């Protein structure tokens, strides 16, 4: 069974005011097939955790480790981590002018698998995944994320998730900015991917509502750069009713 293990992860970023520590010792273990929700107030470091796992150069790891089945991810480049089985669905996917979605998807699939997928079955698979996400076929030929609405960008992220079949996926506020219909469509995509591959999911969210559609096995409350409390799905319900206030007393948000 695959395991993604985060131990004592400490991460800083450079700001105009100097180096700022964001993650202050994060411990998390995610097993294959498990869904872990990370909830927390703005500025608690949730997105930093996502980007640090993926290897964004802006975030400096000061200490700790992230291992996938025992292999240290922090020593690997961004693309090596992806090929090892990590996936990050981004909150603000960038546009790549002049590169068609079809070309991008095929290039990524080839990179992840180490060989180009057979063309016929690949096209079928892309078509099926797109229709599952109610994406028009025109999105194949459009440039990556260019001119996509917020919701279309999120669907495109989940399309990649379904096609690239990672071992572990980090979803960074995939629910933010979606109306309820889009939220359902995106959630169904995540559930399909889980069912198809048995991947583990780290679901980062500010709100409880996506957890109605993507059921978490564990909920972690993230405050001031580390996990302040953890529990089962009932913790999310409690947070929805009570808010984050009780965690914030005596701690500095940052």
């Amino acid at each position, binding site marked *: 069974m695959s395991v993604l293990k985060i131990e004592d992860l400490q991460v800083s970023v450079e700001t105009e005011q100097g180096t700022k520590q964001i993650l202050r010792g994060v411990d998390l273990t995610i097993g294959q097939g498990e869904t872990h929700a990370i909830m927390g107030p703005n500025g608690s470091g949730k997105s930093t955790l996502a980007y640090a796992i*993926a290897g964004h150069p802006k975030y400096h790891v000061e200490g700790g480790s992230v291992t996938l089945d025992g292999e240290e991810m922090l020593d690997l480049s961004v693309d090596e981590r992806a090929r090892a089985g990590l996936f990050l669905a981004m909150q603000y996917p960038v546009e790549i*002018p002049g590169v068609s979605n079809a070309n991008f998807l095929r290039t990524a699939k080839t990179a992840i698998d180490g060989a180009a997928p057979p063309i016929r079955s690949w096209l079928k698979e892309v078509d099926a995944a797109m229709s599952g996400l109610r994406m028009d076929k025109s999105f194949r030929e459009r440039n990556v994320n260019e001119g996509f609405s917020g919701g279309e960008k999120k669907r495109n992220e989940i399309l990649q998730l379904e096609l690239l079949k990672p071992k572990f996926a980090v979803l960074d506020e995939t629910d933010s900015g979606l109306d309820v219909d889009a939220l359902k469509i995106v959630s169904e995509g995540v559930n399909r991917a889980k069912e198809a591959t048995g991947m583990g999911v780290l679901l980062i969210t500010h709100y409880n509502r996506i957890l109605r559609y993507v059921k978490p096995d564990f909920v972690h409350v993230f405050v001031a750069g580390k996990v302040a409390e953890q529990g089962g799905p009932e913790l999310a319900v409690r947070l929805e009713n009570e808010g984050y206030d009780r965690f914030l007393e005596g701690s500095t948000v940052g």
Partner: protein
Amino acid sequence: MSPAAPALVPVQTRSERLASASVDDFAPVTGLEFEWKFVPLAAVKHLTDGALDGSPTAFGYTESAGTAVEWIDASDARVGSAGLPEDRAAANAWSSVEKVLSIVVSGEPAEELVVTRSHFGSAPRAAHVLVEARPHSSGIVILQQNGAANLAENVEIVVGDGAQLTVVTVQEWDDDAVHLSNHFARVGRDANLRHVIVSLGGRAVRVNPSVHLVEQGASIDSFGLYFADSGQYFEQRPYIDHQAANTRSRVNYKGALQGAGAHTVWVGDVLIGPHADGTDSYEQNRNLVLSEGARADSIPNLEIETGNIVGAGHASSTGRFDDEQLFYLQSRGITEEEARRLVVRGFLAEIIQQIGSPALEERISAAVEAELVAAEGVRG
């Protein structure tokens, strides 16, 4: 023809710049003139000031239905119908040529015509090409340049009423080639010119197209693509002259630069004259700088002499590689090298897709790919 402007009096409007076929009307080039200030003068001095061999040079082409290619005398009445030189090298070339290469497009539509020019050699030379599209004809003329060159030339383009003409000029010269080219276009009523400059090879290459929209409804789509490596200098100064009413222009140039000393210059002039009511114009230039030590100059100019227009806009940007794009692609398993290639290819694809000849588009894509691979080798 106006005499040479007195020294040190700046030309106030683009249309008042001196135009003359006589080299003596232009003062010797010092490098202080705006039109010469970026050019590596030592590399081009023999073209502005030296004697040029103006005899015809061999070229290759295949017979294409609806087109005719022949040498005509420089004294032919049609020569000079699209414009006159505006700099000393162009005037030097104009007065040096014995024969003019005439290309006539008369088909409705004509077959694609490719004229391959690869026998100029390294001695200083002058050349003159006259492309004419007969009224209501349509066609695509590709001027493909290869090999050695020390060449000053003028290319005239006359687009008859209602004609649809595409002219593509591809510079894939040898590394030490020098090429100064002025294109003059005259676009007739309801006619369209699509003009594409592709510069990939040569030491110093300058292609300056001046396009005059002289009849109502005339339009120009002006595109450019350049990829400068270490030590290469590429310049282009598109000038769009809206003279008549309801004329339309779109100018879009994109360049990539890689390596120490790579230098590109784009100066885009758009003049909307007093009688050009209903003009619709937009020009832009975008540069992608791929490494340290490269320099891109980008200068858009817009002169408007009538208030009654549909639109006039310009944009210019010169940027480094977007790290967020790289991160995004790499986070999907794509290696950094391949991600860079994808982004640059995508950046330039917008222009390549406009060429209008599938075979040439494919070949230019491959050539850009080769540039990228070579550039990676340099970067190590």
